[in-house]
């Protein structure tokens, strides 16, 4: 018996083989879970799947790893049937009720075939099978790789969350102590100063609770005025008077002269007040930063009704260092609420604003400017973050959302290095959308979120 035809197309070759070897052979029926071949055991049959599907698995460290799967019109047992060892390298299990036709080595002998010719004829089929398995392996690899990457991102976030929570706790303790000491210092000073007279206490109280002081320039003008008006006053004295006295008092010559008599003691009281004031400002600033960082890294992100405006304001506090050198324009509508994790939203804005600022700094953009707008449109919350930086080239506009995309080349940046991929993930989490439009000189990120009416 010979095999008809020499070179043929894959389909016709397959059909010919199917007809010639598998049309009148025995048929095997398997139930779901039945094992067709055992890993390491010999096999002398070549199977053709007529119906159903099977998978080939190997055991590795007590774990089953799927290597390939076979469907209708595919061959099983290719390796063991054609290889020298004759052993199956996987365990093949039916995944559903499956029907197979097979031919055994014994049957092949009975057919009195030229084996070389037979093997040659099967070669394209074998190669095809191998290629198919290779593709499977590639696919499994990619899935695994993706899962690993996701895990790394999650671990990074979790680590950051824990680290910031711990840090925030420690810093809060320190700030709390400072706050308490400032208060107690303040009241003790008042007691001490009481003996000196009401003027001192008033000065201390006024300075320590003052909201704003004269600017350095205004003060310089006052000093200049005093030196001009009072020839006898020295420069250090004028400086002290400018601190102690109000704008009106400085113009009153009698008050100025009267103050001169006890200028050093009064200035001392003023300095105490100013120092207490500055310390309060510094601790307030520290607590504010700590609370923002805590929100950002909060490990349990419960959904709640959040006013978008406040999340944007928090984000702006967090990035204030990065945006110090640029123009910030905001137009934020109050009262737009959505159901989300507050920290998540803060993180979205932080990432967008930081990215814009960094892109402009790196490109050396002239008159850098960031606009943040919050408004509503068609029952949706619309936030746009716009910058006048170099823009994102068309071909890169898709890839910037990938987790490892970055334009940053070292330097000092506080960040997760995940930027826009996080933005996209978080916004999608709350059924929102991220849109990007960018040309040199204007880049717009538009975030849309559903409005929730509480």
């Amino acid at each position, binding site marked *: 018996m010979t095999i008809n035809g020499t070179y043929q197309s894959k389909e016709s070759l397959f059909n010919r083989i199917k007809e010639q070897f598998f049309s009148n052979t025995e048929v095997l029926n398997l139930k779901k879970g039945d094992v067709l071949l055992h890993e390491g055991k010999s096999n002398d049959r070549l199977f053709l799947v007529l119906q159903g599907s099977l998978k080939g698995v190997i055991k590795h460290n007590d774990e089953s790893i799927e290597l390939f799967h076979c469907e209708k019109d595919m061959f099983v047992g290719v390796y063991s049937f054609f290889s020298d060892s004759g052993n199956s390298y996987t365990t093949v299990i039916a995944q559903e009720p499956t029907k197979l036709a097979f031919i055994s080595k014994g049957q092949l002998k009975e057919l009195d075939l030229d084996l070389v010719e037979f093997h040659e004829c099967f070669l394209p089929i074998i190669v095809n099978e191998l290629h198919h398995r290779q593709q499977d392996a590639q696919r499994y690899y990619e899935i695994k790789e993706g899962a690993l990457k996701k895990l790394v991102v999650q671990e990074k976030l979790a680590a950051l969350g824990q680290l910031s929570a711990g840090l925030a706790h420690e810093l809060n303790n320190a700030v709390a102590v400072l706050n308490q000491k400032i208060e107690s210092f303040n009241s003790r000073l008042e007691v001490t100063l009481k003996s000196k007279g009401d003027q001192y206490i008033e000065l201390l109280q006024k300075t320590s609770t003052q909201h704003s*002081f004269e*600017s*350095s*320039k205004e003060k*310089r003008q006052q000093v200049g005025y005093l030196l001009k008006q009072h020839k006898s006053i020295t*420069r*250090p004295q004028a400086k002290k008077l400018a601190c102690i006295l109000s704008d009106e008092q400085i113009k009153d010559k009698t008050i100025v002269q009267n103050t001169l008599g006890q200028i050093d003691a009064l200035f001392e009281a003023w*300095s105490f007040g*100013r120092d207490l004031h*500055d310390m309060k*400002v*510094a601790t307030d600033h520290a607590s504010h930063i700590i609370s923002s960082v805590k929100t950002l890294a909060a490990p349990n992100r419960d959904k709640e009704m959040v006013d978008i405006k406040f999340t944007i304001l928090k984000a702006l506090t967090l990035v204030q*260092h990065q945006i*110090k*050198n640029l123009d910030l324009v905001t137009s934020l509508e109050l009262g737009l609420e959505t159901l989300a994790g507050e920290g998540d939203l803060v993180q979205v804005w932080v990432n967008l604003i930081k990215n814009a600022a960094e892109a402009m700094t790196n490109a050396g953009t002239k008159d850098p400017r960031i606009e943040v707008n919050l408004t509503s449109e068609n029952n949706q919350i619309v936030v746009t973050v716009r910058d006048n930086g170099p823009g994102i080239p068309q071909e890169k506009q898709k890839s910037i959302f990938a987790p490892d995309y970055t334009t940053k080349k*070292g*330097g*000092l940046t506080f960040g997760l290095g995940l930027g826009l991929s996080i933005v996209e993930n978080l916004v999608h989490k709350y059924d929102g959308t991220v849109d990007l439009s960018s040309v040199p000189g204007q880049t717009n990120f538009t975030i849309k979120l559903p409005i929730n009416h509480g």
Partner: protein
Amino acid sequence: MDKIYIICVDDQPEVLNSVLEDIGSLEEKFFIEGCESAEEAEELMQEIDAKGNLVGLVISDHVMPNKNGVEFLTDVKESDMYPNLKKILLTGLATHEDTIRAINKAEIDYYFAKPWEKHDLLLKVKHLMTAFILDTGLDYQDYMIYMDQQLLYRRLKERV
């Protein structure tokens, strides 16, 4: 006696106050001024210069709105108006590149990281003011109490 100014620049009033207070003891001999922006400092320095007085030292923060510290100090350096001027960069946040620029382009004399130690700052300021006075050829005896004695001794020995 010439009027010599020390200019401190920081946009945060509380920080500016702290710097001014730390070097306040030098006020008897030097004119110490605080400015809240680079622009304000530039204006003031021009006024001082116009009146024929001297600016001996600038202590500047880096991260400030509009013009940052390194840009400010670079402009001051490149203006050639203040040939012997000493410059200190006092900052809590400067990138690697900013720092390189500060040294190479602004030619700063010293870099202080926030938070600083009062003692160190005062010593450095005295040291740089001594250098300024000697470089400019002023009569150092007027300022004797605030001089860095070691530097003075070394420089005088070189002269002989």
